[in-house]
């Protein structure tokens, strides 16, 4: 009993971790299933079919490509706009700062369905054709706030004296920005961009309202929950998981190597 009490945090933490990871393991295991009916919810027999032919389902890989395209453009837009706002908010004092801060905070303090529905009323009233462009506009909008927060955190912790030093050494404003400011802010901008990409790629609720008949990957998965889930969905899910883990691990290895080589100097 006392052992349990001493290690309570470890035991409870591992239970939570299991709760988080088990669905991913299920997704992985069921990517090797050969389902009997339309739905891949119960285990039948082992098969590599889906892995051999990941694009063997009509329209699935097309929706995946579309989601990637939208996520890339939305990330680009939100990162550029968000970084500019973050710099303005941290580096300059001006009127209406409070109002602008709350305008940026609002999209994060609102249930997604409200934003999704209100955007749809705008597009309906303007008579806009729902599809690629409306999805892109919506994604850029809701990713923007997250980029601002991520970049702001980084810029705030920057030492302004580094830029002053660069100017004292006769660097022009453009040179200072490109060679001092931007490299220091880069990790924050990268974090914001990655967050925007992940949010856009995985977004369902806002896309559901504003996509018309255009099918992104989450929309495809949603539809398949009604029509029948192909095993290939699990293959894509597993591949995404593995790629993400590899990227994170590679990032860790690179940064720890850098630290090791930087220290002896």
């Amino acid at each position, binding site marked *: 009993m006392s052992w349990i009490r001493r290690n309570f945090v470890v035991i409870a933490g591992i239970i939570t971790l299991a709760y988080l990871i088990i669905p991913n393991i299920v997704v992985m295991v069921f990517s090797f299933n050969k389902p009997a009916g339309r739905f891949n919810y119960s285990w039948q027999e082992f098969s590599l079919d889906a892995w051999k032919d990941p694009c063997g389902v009509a329209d699935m890989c097309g929706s995946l490509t579309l989601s990637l395209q939208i996520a890339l453009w939305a990330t680009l837009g939100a990162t550029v706009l968000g970084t*500019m706002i973050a710099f303005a908010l941290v580096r300059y004092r001006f009127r209406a700062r409070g109002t602008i*801060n709350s305008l940026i905070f609002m999209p994060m303090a609102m249930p997604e369905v*409200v934003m999704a*529905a209100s955007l749809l*009323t*705008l597009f309906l009233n303007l008579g806009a054709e729902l599809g690629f462009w409306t999805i892109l506009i919506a994604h850029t909008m809701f990713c923007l706030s997250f980029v601002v927060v991520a970049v*702001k955190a980084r810029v705030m912790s920057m030492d302004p004296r580094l830029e002053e030093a660069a100017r004292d050494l006769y660097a022009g404003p453009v040179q200072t920005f490109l060679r001092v400011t931007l490299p220091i802010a880069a990790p924050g901008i990268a974090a914001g961009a990655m967050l925007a990409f992940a949010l856009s790629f995985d977004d369902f609720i806002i896309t559901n309202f504003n996509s018309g008949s255009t099918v992104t990957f989450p929309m495809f998965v*949603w539809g398949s929950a009604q029509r029948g889930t192909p095993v290939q969905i699990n293959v894509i899910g597993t591949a995404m998981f593995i790629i993400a883990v590899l990227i994170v691990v590679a990032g860790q290895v690179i940064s720890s190597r850098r630290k090791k080589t930087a220290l002896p100097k």
Partner: protein
Amino acid sequence: MTVTEAPPAPPGPVVHKTSVRRKLVPYWLLLPGILWLLVFFALPLVYQASTSVQTGSLEQGFQVTWHFQTYWDALTEYYPQFLRSLLYAGTATVLCLLLGYPLAYLIAFRAGRWRNLLLVLVIAPFFTSFLIRTLAWKTILADGGPVVEFLNVIGFLDVTSWLGLTAGDRVLATPLAVVTGLTYNFLPFMILPLYTSLERIDPRLHEAAGDLYAKPATVFRKVTFPLSMPGVVSGTLLTFIPASGDYVNAELLGSTDTRMIGNVIQSQFLRVLDYPTAAALSFILMAIVLVMVTVYIRRAGTEDLV
């Protein structure tokens, strides 16, 4: 609400042309992004407000008739779904806090060299589409599956059935399944802010409290937990707000008896095409959430949220 341009530069002594240009810099930096938010975030809310007081039909068109009755009708017809949403989202938030706190604590203070690996394991599930992961719960909670069988054998389902959380020996299509899915989906949003605020605590404070003869439980209650309050507040907000409007879990794991307000808004907008009611419902949800969040932040007393 009117669409306002960025305000003009504050008047100041004009010394050089360059200094005037420098003063305009922040406005040029803000302009594109703020314009985007005004046009695609604020303006849509105005359109939605106007839609909510319109009457008419899809065939004959809608006109603004200041028909506030829609709000009252929507509220009286759908108050069970509103209450259910708040109840499910609230339960999921409390469960996230209870489940997430030990893990965040473990990563912050006890993980040692495993810290980065554990953090990766918390974030990594994010990268598999959340819809795919939610569908995986259909497999996990399948009727007659090992999980449900186990819960049945230990008598857990008898208790939850008696509480009205499950029905017979099923878990799928019951409130328990929906809350399980909600808790699962928003758990990382609780763990990460908790971890960030716990990680900032100096472990020497724990030692100091221990040296002053505080028991571990007292250290937690008097030192650790109060210092982690910013994480608790932002974690609960990041969980509760999206959970209250979510309709994915209720749709995929629930039944018609577990419909949340998000499901109603979605079907009114996209299937029934009754735009005024849908807009009114969405506004009521927004108002409820904003009021609850404001009261909560006041009471919890944290201003430095973002």
